[in-house]
């Protein structure tokens, strides 16, 4: 399958502290790939580097065959790379609908955008109900849906999500993961960072385990779920 995202020897540091120390990672068309690891292992740093929010020290990022290592974040969105960031970063002071429309900033043609908007309302009916409300008044689960829908408004080729389950009730988390699986079935490639390794491995095709800024294990989600080291450290089985 064709390569969508290729990360090679990625190094990144925060004020002198090495957060990533040479990461290799790939996402191919049609895949869900997840990154699992403990707090501070470098998962979020990795997504921030890929989306262009944080400059890269060394190494390269290629997306759809183009070198993206030093492109502006906005430029990467235009190329089809969307991040649904940690903490959701919804625009609290604008309406739900405006949040969504701003998600389509890089696209042209109001009719096509309107159509995507309707698709998002179908996928997340709660957002249709809340359409004219300020985004800051939404519940946590609704905000997560808004953040996902907003990322999808750009019609990305790769959707990256950072901790979509964080702080949400199990039922809502289940709903969100069902939707991710559905999106993937429709052809969306997904790169998922998730603390809940159970859930993540369940819907993923492949997975990478990050420890202290390095990939220590990688393979198919099935293999990793069966690996005793993963079971012990991330799945809570002994």
């Amino acid at each position, binding site marked *: 399958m064709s390569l969508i995202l290729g990360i090679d020897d990625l190094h990144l540091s925060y004020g002198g502290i090495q957060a990533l120390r040479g990461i290799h990672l790939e996402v191919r068309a049609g895949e869900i790939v997840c990154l699992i690891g403990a707090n501070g292992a470098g998962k979020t740093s990795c997504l921030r580097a890929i*989306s262009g929010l944080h400059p890269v020290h060394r190494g390269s990022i290629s997306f759809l065959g183009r070198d993206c290592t030093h492109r502006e974040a*906005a*430029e990467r969105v235009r190329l089809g790379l969307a991040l649904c960031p940690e903490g959701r970063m919804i625009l609290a002071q604008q309406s739900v609908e405006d949040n969504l429309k701003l998600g389509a900033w890089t696209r042209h043609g109001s009719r096509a955008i309107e159509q995507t908007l309707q698709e998002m309302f179908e996928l997340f009916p709660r957002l249709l109900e809340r359409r004219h409300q300020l985004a800051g008044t939404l519940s946590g689960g609704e905000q997560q849906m808004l953040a996902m829908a907003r*990322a999808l408004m750009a019609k990305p080729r790769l959707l990256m999500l950072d901790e979509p389950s964080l702080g949400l009730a199990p039922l809502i988390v289940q709903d969100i993961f069902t939707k991710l699986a559905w999106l993937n079935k429709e052809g969306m490639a997904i790169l998922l960072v998730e603390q809940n390794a159970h859930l993540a491995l369940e819907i993923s095709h492949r997975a990478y385990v990050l420890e202290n800024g390095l990939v220590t294990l990688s393979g198919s989600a099935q293999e990793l779920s069966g690996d005793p080291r993963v079971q012990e450290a991330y799945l809570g089985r002994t």
Partner: protein
Amino acid sequence: MLQILLNGLCIGSVYALFAIGYALVFSLLGVINFAHGAVFAVGAYLTWSLSSGTWGGGLWPAYTSSFHLPFWQAALVSALFCALLAMGLEKVAFAPLRKRHAEALQYLVSSLGFGIFLVNLLLLFYGAETKNFDLDILSFVPPLIEWNGLFVRGVQLLILGVSLISLLLILALFRFSMAGKGLRAVAENPQAASLLGIPVPRIMSLTFAFSGALASLAGTLIAAGFSIPGPHFGMLFGLKGLAVIVLGGMGEVSGAIVGGLLLGLMEAAVPADYSGYKEAVGFALLFGVLLLRPEGLLGRPQKEKF
């Protein structure tokens, strides 16, 4: 009473026009652009020169060219020039600091420095004498209209008309256009905005251009209505604009408008015999509002930006 209202709205709407430039930059960067008043002065001088054909007068010898533009066109060219000037200002005094995650105080120094540079450039070129618009430049408006005991200078109507129309357009632009929503997105969370594909550096640049054009328009209107008492009047006006946004609420376009109109009305309410106390009344109002509502009339309580 009606006379006061009219005079107040007239000057207040120009304050508002000017202060919007501060508010926009503040909403994006959380800092004050102290060169805004200097851009205002450049706009005033440029319109004066373009419409009268008179250049220089300072160390640069005075020179009268036969080429001159009608007032409208002069104002427009001057606004465009000041838009470019403000974009340059952003590149020189703001963008490098933003890249280094500078503190508010450092922006203050760099923008103030740029402003002082501009003012002294004007001083060098034009000298410190007062410049007046010739009556024939503004001959398209009647000098004085009397209506039911109300005295209105034609220029006042011009100022009021131009600035009120501009204010309405600006409000509509920021409420309803995608560009306005994008700008508000950058103001609320630059990282979130860039993740949506909004080119943050370009939005910064365009915002400066827009506020530069507004400063020039305000400068043109004030100069046409009164005079240009010397290059430093921009910095003084700049302080007044600062009072306006503190009054209305920092970083809010609507706050700048309300604050501007209010300050204008208060100043106009000062009787002519005490006109020396005009500024005092304005700043007393500012103190009063700050005591009761530190975030300004329409402001939201500020959270730390950095």
